[in-house]
């Protein structure tokens, strides 16, 4: 049964390829092709779902080997990365749940997205995302998980961009992607440290060698992966990206930020349970960040006036609680929490559009009772604790300014130091032009500089040239007075006479003969 696992991420991927190729070539276009697109997407995800359920059944009957290896993906010297999958335990259960939710959401979107401009694009991204997500949970090593992790992030970017003509959507998508990119560095660092210290990045191997790692090493690996998990699951300080991501269509919000992708962080932590158990500092980090986010999500959620935002902050808070549970050592509980939360949140997100439709215009709500007495807390909650502004002030703006200064430095200093050729308009093309320029210049300023230079090397050369010119001018040329000119004239006359003699035919023939003799 184990080899079925390859097909699970592959089927939606093939669907994505088909839809993508169809859209790019123009075969799938407009309302007429909506059926084809939705058929491809639904078939793929349904088959995947059936397969995961089969895999789950086999796992429950203990018929799976636990892992399945396909081959080597990359090898360089001693560094090898395999393509392998986990076919046992939490991963399979989560895959079954996720594929079920993905299927439901996909079915929902067919009606929801009907006659939308980007219908085909939406299903392309959704299929790609399903594939990435299933790869993420089923993969047997960190790099393959990272594959799914990043492609899911890319899909999230693309879906926030769904209405790409709206400037806000474009801005938010970019911001979300770059925020997640910061977390990804943690993932890559984690992978590198795993290779450096545990010689491996296979999840199962990492779990088994956790005992041999020293506390420091375990803490290093755990903190790196925790950073990645915090960014993906929108924990403090990364939380603001989640509300920005609500620009996408509702089914995509449901699937990304309610049901599936947002849980990837917790899943990652659960995979690394043995390593976290060895690293008390990392556990403490989970507790602190989880608690802070839960509080933050709760307080900020209180003042939200639209349904999607309040769902977002509720999600953040619940995820914070999951991290807290992990940090306290209730791993099993956190896993149950994850599954239950995924189901509930999917329902809430999918029913949000009809809720909004029924309620019509957000009614004005009174300020929540908890916050009425605490004005500062109310303001903080309304301002979402200024998290966005703080990151802007601490990171984005200094970086922008630095970039601006460096750009100036590059243009005005480096470029000039290295030298730029003088613009053609300043150079002199003929001697007449030089003469003209010298004549029009005031006498005392007249310099005989012919070439123009800049840059260190250019300046040096021109300084040297000026010096030589000065020597020539002052000593060689001016040293000779009128006598010299007369002498020169006399010499010239003598030379002319000599030449006349030489040019007589006999002398010429003589010279030629001598030359020929010398040559042979």
């Amino acid at each position, binding site marked *: 049964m184990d080899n079925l696992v390859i097909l699970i991420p592959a089927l939606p991927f093939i669907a994505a390829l088909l839809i993508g190729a169809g859209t790019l070539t123009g075969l799938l276009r407009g309302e007429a092709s909506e059926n084809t697109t939705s058929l491809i997407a639904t078939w793929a995800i349904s088959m995947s779902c059936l397969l995961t359920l089969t895999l789950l059944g086999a796992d429950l009957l203990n018929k799976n080997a636990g892992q399945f290896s396909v081959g080597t993906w990359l*090898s360089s*010297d001693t560094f090898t990365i395999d393509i392998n999958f986990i076919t046992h335990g939490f991963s399979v259960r989560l895959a079954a749940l996720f594929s079920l939710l993905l299927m439901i959401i996909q079915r929902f979107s067919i009606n929801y997205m009907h006659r939308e401009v980007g219908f085909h694009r939406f299903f392309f991204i959704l299929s790609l995302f399903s594939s990435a997500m299933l790869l993420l949970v089923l993969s047997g090593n960190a790099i393959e998980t990272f594959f799914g992790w990043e492609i899911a992030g890319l899909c999230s970017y693309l879906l926030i961009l769904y209405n*790409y003509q*709206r400037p806000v959507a474009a801005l938010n998508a970019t911001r979300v992607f770059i925020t997640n*990119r910061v977390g990804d560095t943690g993932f890559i660092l984690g992978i*590198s440290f795993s290779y450096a210290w545990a010689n491996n990045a296979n999840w199962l191997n990492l779990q088994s060698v956790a005992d041999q790692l020293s506390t420091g090493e375990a803490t290093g690996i755990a903190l790196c992966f925790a950073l990645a998990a915090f960014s993906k699951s929108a924990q403090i300080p990364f939380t603001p990206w989640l509300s920005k991501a609500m620009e996408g269509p509702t089914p995509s919000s449901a699937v990304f930020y309610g049901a599936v992708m947002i849980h990837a962080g917790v899943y990652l932590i659960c995979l690394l349970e043995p390593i976290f158990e060895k690293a008390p500092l990392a556990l403490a980090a989970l507790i602190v960040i989880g608690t802070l986010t839960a509080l933050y999500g709760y307080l900020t959620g209180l003042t939200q006036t639209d349904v999607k935002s309040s769902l977002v902050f509720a999600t953040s808070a619940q995820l914070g609680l999951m991290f807290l549970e992990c940090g306290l050592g209730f791993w099993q509980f956190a896993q149950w929490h994850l599954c239950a939360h995924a189901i509930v949140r999917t329902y809430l997100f999918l029913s949000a559009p009809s809720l909004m439709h029924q309620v019509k215009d957000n009614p004005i709500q009174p300020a929540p009772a908890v916050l009425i007495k605490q004005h500062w807390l109310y303001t903080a909650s309304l301002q979402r604790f200024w998290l966005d502004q703080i990151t802007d002030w601490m990171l984005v703006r200094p970086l922008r300014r630095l970039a601006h200064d460096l750009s100036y430095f*590059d243009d005005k200093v480096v470029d000039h*130091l290295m*030298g730029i050729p003088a613009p053609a308009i300043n150079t002199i093309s003929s001697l007449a032009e030089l003469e003209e320029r010298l004549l029009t210049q005031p006498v005392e300023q007249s310099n005989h500089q012919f070439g123009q230079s800049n840059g260190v090397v250019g300046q040096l050369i021109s300084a040297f040239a000026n010096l030589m010119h000065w020597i020539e001018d002052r000593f060689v040329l001016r040293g000779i007075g009128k006598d010299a000119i007369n002498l020169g004239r006399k010499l010239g006359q003598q030379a002319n006479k000599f030449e006349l003699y030489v040019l007589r035919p006999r002398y010429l023939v003589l010279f030629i003969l001598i030359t020929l003799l010398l040559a042979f």
Partner: protein
Amino acid sequence: MSHADFPLLSLLIFFPILGALSLYLTPKPHLAKKIALAIASLELLLTGLAFGLFNNLDGAHFQLTEQYAWIPSLHINYYVGIDGISVLFLPATAFLTLSAIMTSWNAIQSLQRFHFALILLLEGISIGVLSALDTLLFFVFWELTLPPLFFLIGVWGIGPKRRSAAMKYTLFMLFGGVPLLFAILLLAMNHATTVQGLLPKDLCFNLLILLETPVSDHLQLIVFSLFLLGFAAKAPLVPFHTWLPTASMEGPAQITALLMGLKLGLYGILRFALPLAPSAAVEYSWALGILGGITLIYAALIALQQTNLRRLLAYASISHVGLVLIGIASLTAQGIQGALFQLFNFSLISSSLMLIAGFIQQRLGSTEVLHLGGLAKVVPRLTSFYFLFVIASIGLPGTSGFPAELLLIIGALTAHNSLGFTALAGSVLSAAYLLSFTRKAFLGPILQKSLHTLHDLRPREVALLCLPALFVLILGCAPNLLLNVSQVASEAWLTHLMEPPASDPNEIVQFSQP
């Protein structure tokens, strides 16, 4: 082996050069570009053949070698060959040339024959640079790349200061040439003194022999710095990079794509600077790493500030050079293989992005962000390709950028943590500058009326971009296809660096009989 005697590499070098000459004999200019296209396609097939004949398992040794005496009295030979490090550059060069010719198809209206001849000439010379195994032959080819590029930038440039840009490029390259020649001569003389031979007779320019000749430590340092200085101008490394943004703004896009795709400077560092001064390279690899780190971050930060796509791509390319240099400086198998992989990626990714910039330039007359905005709506196909190359450039999994970047970062982290952190910071910055430009230029509402009539990619242009796109995706999914080629060679390269060559003078090849 039957193919051993066939001078395939010479054919690869001289076929396009002769082709360039033959273009002059064609009476009609429109025929010239067809001939040029045929020659470039055939050349691509031939490089494919060379790649096919190349034996990966023996990648540490030079293959397809040819050696003829050129200046016998000085032991300068016409000596060419390829190993696992250079073999990948050949098809990349041929491919870049082919795409440059296809892009110039309608864009070039004046002096067509001269233009296509120069591109072919440049191709032959570049392949000469990549396969030369004689230091002086290398130098000759190296300097010969200048004249074609000077004219290509200066005559067909699209900016108002194209002449000045061409001059700037030439001056920078000439400046780089001087230390190179110095280093080559120093090494040749060193060989003569080591074997205690006669000076003019025992000069040696053969790379393979020079690799085995021991060089004293202080001379190694001099040679290493000279080589580095020479190649830094071409690579380009900060602070010798200022010619690239100028050239990208003033030169024609397809030629800039060639310039950015062909990383001859880094190839030189890999082939000559480090192996010829091994102990200095090992000792001063930290300096190389710092230089790479500065280039990476400095150029990435400046790229954040750019408002013009072509200039942005120039800085992005400089930043990537820094990343590759970090990989090389790590002196680990992963770093080197990642560097080679990334170099191959460049040829595909940054040149394709530059070509796309060229397409936009051709349609709109500008790549300034002020004149763009909302392109995704009007030119969806162009945007799709652009986006694919952007995510490949960022290094997202599924594209060839990812395995290369992963190897580079892991190599850097193994060598020194701070190098790895710099590389990671660079990867965040690369996402920032590329995506924020994408946002401004391709997303959002359409503000310029002229954009509404924009024509999407034509079939010829799609065909041109499909090949690199396919490669980017295939190599992203199966990186071992490429890594297997360079595996043996990069391991041998590292071994050579870590274990200094024989110090016994008797073992060294000596030309004059004492």
